[in-house]
Each structure stands twice: as structure tokens, then as C-alpha cells.
């Protein structure tokens, strides 16, 4: 069986997103002076996590539909 490219993309970004989000929560707020006081790790981590999960979602949907069709 051939693996859909969206699986690894989704997996990778979900993981990176999750790590960034957690890091954003636990990290020292002082480091966000650079980024105009915005906790970019937290926010962008959530964006990446959402992107990764959407990709995984599409991949799973296509995967389920695939075998049924053939």
C-alpha cells in the first residue's frame, strides 16, 4: 500500500505544533520581548497543530474512502 503524503506532513506539523505550544506555556515570558511581547511559540504552535491535524484528518478520510472504492 502506498502512504498518502499528508500523513507524514500532518504528523510532523502536529508534533512540532504540540511541542511549541507546550514550550510556549512553560517558557519564561521575558524571551518574548523580541517578538513584540507576543507569545509566538504558543500561538504559532497552535496554528501548526491545527494545520497538522487538518492534514491528518484529510489523509484519514481519503484513506477510509480509498479501500471502499476499489
Amino acid at each position, binding site marked *: 500500500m502506498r502512504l498518502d*503524503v499528508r500523513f507524514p506532513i500532518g504528523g510532523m506539523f502536529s508534533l512540532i505544533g504540540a511541542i511549541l505550544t507546550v514550550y510556549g506555556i512553560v517558557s519564561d515570558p521575558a524571551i518574548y520581548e523580541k517578538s513584540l511581547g507576543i507569545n509566538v511559540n504558543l500561538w504559532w504552535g497552535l496554528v501548526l497543530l491545527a494545520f497538522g491535524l487538518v492534514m491528518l484528518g484529510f489523509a484519514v478520510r481519503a484513506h477510509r474512502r480509498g479501500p471502499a472504492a476499489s
Partner: protein
Amino acid sequence: MLGIGWALRRRIRSSEDFFLSGRSIPAWIAGLAFISANLGAQEVIGMAASGAKYGIMTSHFYWVGAMPAMVFVGLFMMPFYYGSRARSVPEYLKLRFDEKTRGLNAITFAIMTIFSSGISMYALAKLFELVLGWSFHGSIVLSAVIVLIYIFLGGLTSAIYNEVLQFFLIVLGFLPLVLLGLKDVGGWSGLTAKLATVATNAGFEPGAWSHSWKYMDSPSHNPMGMEWFGLVMGLGFALSFGYWCTDFLVVQRAMAAGSMTAARRTPLIAAVPKMLMPVLVILPGMLAIGLHASRGGFLPIGSDGQPEYNLAIPMLLGHYLPTGLLGLGLTALMASFMSGMAGNVTAFNSVWTYDIYQTHIRPGQTDAHYLRVGHAATVFGICASVVAAYSATRFNNILDMLQLVFSFVNGPLFATFLLGMFWRRTTSHGAFYGLLTGTITAALHYGLTLPQGSVPGIKGGFLGAVLHVYPSEMALNFWTALFAWTGCFVATLLISLFTKRTKTDDELRGLVHSLTPRIQEGHMPWYKRPVTLGVGILVASTILNVIFW
């Protein structure tokens, strides 16, 4: 963070075999692979450097250059590429013309890959220099070793797959940077106010950095030193069409598609995200130069007294991103350099081994022999890239250097393809000597002119007399490409008229426009036809040009 990204990439690479030639994947992914093949260091670092050096005029590379060219590839060139069943661009030349034309193209292509790889190596070394604090020499050695290991570990076994992954890594890694930068300078209006300072400091009208067409009435009114005719013909026609229509690394992605319609649609789909890339790659450069002017010394000053435009993206990364996201940004950059280098060195290896060595030097050897030659070619390619990387240090904008290489290679080649695909009378001798003439024309033009403020040498003018001084490096590149294209076109045309045809109509079936059956797309709903998509893209890029006029 860096380590995680890296480990993930390694793991994913070694566990696959699954992404085969785009047949089972959605069309949009094939399209992404098409633009990712050109989203290397040149795109990220070079376009940002140009955004800083030339302002929003850099967008012409997209909305005047790439868009029409990608539509042209999809609608007009792809039927012959795909229909001829050639696996590469040199192979098409062999089918259409002869072995010697293919050989000449293989040689110029091999040289081009070395320069491209050297430019990526230079950018990677600059990044190491900045992040690790090593000397430039040490950083070059480190980059060379890393790429060598990467290739010998089988780095490119699933190139298309990696490219898609990388595309997202770059987009998602740089978007927060752009958003933060824009917020910091006060949005687009804040940015234009800062760019007005940049422009007046350089002696131009305040809008010279933020208007793409307004100041193109004369070369002396804009930072690129171009007027509209030279830009449209040199960049829009010769360079862009040359690059998108003949660059083997890019065209190959579409050749691997599952059907003719899919192959034609690939560049058209790719054009949609490509149209939006300036936000990610040009805007950061404009932000960097704006900050440079208003806060003083944001970019380091190079040995030529100019700001080091190449460092726009790395400096912004360090300035805005905290630990964590910084790792993601750096991983995105390194991934891009690494694959840019590895892709080019691997292409050099295969062109040298199959198109030059096996065909012209020692045919009929064992596979093991060619494999050894291939390994040697890889090592040689990396050493040559080191030399190219050192020559890149002379350019404060790597896009200037890259376009110079393209003007030599792709400019004349596009004339050969245009005549070869649309005029069946074009002969093999015409193509070969025409291509040679085009390349020599480029060398003559480059050797007799010079960009302002440079000394004769690697930047041109090495033939003794300097007949013309261009206001910028980029202006010289555009004119070199236009001269090379014209030289090749005229020579091919004349020689073809005076030599006998070498291929009969029958042999040219599927290779030349008038001898290829029309593609029937009448059964498809209008919105699915490639033509509809193409027209839509052209309309959208016209609108973008008007917005930023």
C-alpha cells in the same frame, strides 16, 4: 528544536517508497512539488536580498516573469514534453535534434547546477557563520561535509516527497516572521513610510521602493536601473520563459505526472501559490531595509561598502523570533539549502554520468563502472561548488549571481526550444550552432559591460574594453539574457534555412507543434480545462501588478 526537525526528516525519509510520480496524489500536491523544486536558497535568501536592494520591483520576477511563463509551459510546451515521452530536457533535445545538441545542453546545464549548488552552499555557510560564530572558511568546509554525507546516505531517494514537506516547512516557518515584522513597522503604510527614507537616501523619488511600475520610465529613476522595455523583454520574456520552460529540475516534476491533462495542469496549479510567494520572500527583504534605514545598521555592511542584502532573512529571524520558533525558522532555512545543494549536485552527477560520460566519453562500460564515475562526480561536484561558493561572496545579492548564470544557460536555450517546438524546418545544425552562438553572445555582452561601481572581473568587463555601464547587476543580467536569446534565435533561424533537414516529418511527430494532434478537451467542463485556469492566473497577476503599480 533543530534536532527534532532534523531527526524527523531523517526518519521520514528512510521509511518510504510510497510517493510515486504523483499518480495517486491530489493534483495540488504535484503542483506544490513543482514550485518546491525551485524554492531553494535562491528563492528565500535571494528574493529577500533583492527585495531589500531593489524594493518591490522584485515582484516582477513573479507577476511579470513566472506567471506568464508557467502558463505558457502548461498550455503550450507540456504537450511536447509529455507527449514525446522524454525523461529529461536534454533527452528531448536528442529526440528533436541530435546527440551534439544534447551534449552541449548537458555541459551548460552541468555548469549551471554547480553554480546553483555553490550559491546554496554560500548561503548555508553564511548561516553557520552567523549562528555558530565560525569563520566563513570553516563554515564552507562544514557545509561541504554535511552535503556529502547527506547525498551518500541516499538523501534524494524521495525528492518530490521531501520537497512538498519542505514547502510547508518554509511557508509555516516564515509566515510568523513576516507577520511580526509588519506589525512592528506599522503595517503596509508604516513600511512605505520607512521605504520612502530608503529611497530618498539613495537619491530616488520616495516611492521608488514601494511602486513596481511607476518609476520604470527611465533606468535612472528606479533602484534596479531598468526601463519597462528591457524588463519585460529581458526578465519577462528571455529569462523567465527560459527558466520555467527549460529548467530540467522544474520541468521534470510535471513530466512525472499521471496523464497529459495532469502534466499540463501541474504548472498551472503551482502558479497559484507561486503568485503569493512574494509575501513570504520579498516582503521580509523590504522590512529589513526599512529597519536598516530607520534604526541604523540593521544589516551588516559588507566589504564593498554596501549592506549585506543576503543577510536580510537571517538577521530578521534572529531579531524577531524567540527560542523555539527560531529553531523552526532555522530548520526551514537549512532544509532549503541542503536540498538545494543536494538536488543540484545529484543532477550534476546524473547529467555528467549519463548525458556526457556514457554518451560521449566511454560508452558500453559496466554499471559498476558508471556507479563509480557517479560517486567521483558527486565529490567533484561538491569541490567545484566550494569554488562557486567563494565566487558568490563577491555578490551582495545572490539572486544577481543566479540570474547571471541563468542568462547564459536558459536564455539562449529558450530560443532553441521555441524554434524547435514550433517550426519543423529547424535543423540539428541550426540548433547546435545557434545555441553555441547564443552562449557566446552572452559571454561577449557580459565581458564588454559592467554594472556600476564594480571592477572588471567576475562581475563582467573582463574582455578589456567596457562599452557600457549598467546601473545595477540585475540590469546587466536582463540585457545579457536578451542578447543571448536574440543571438541564438537569429543564428538558429539562419543556419536552419541554409542547412538540410536532418529529421523527417515522421520522426518529428509528437515533438513539433504542427505535427502533433490537437489535444481534445471539449468533453471536459469549462472550469476544468487548463486554458481556463491559465487565463484566470494571468488575470489575477495583472490585478496584482495594478495594485502595487
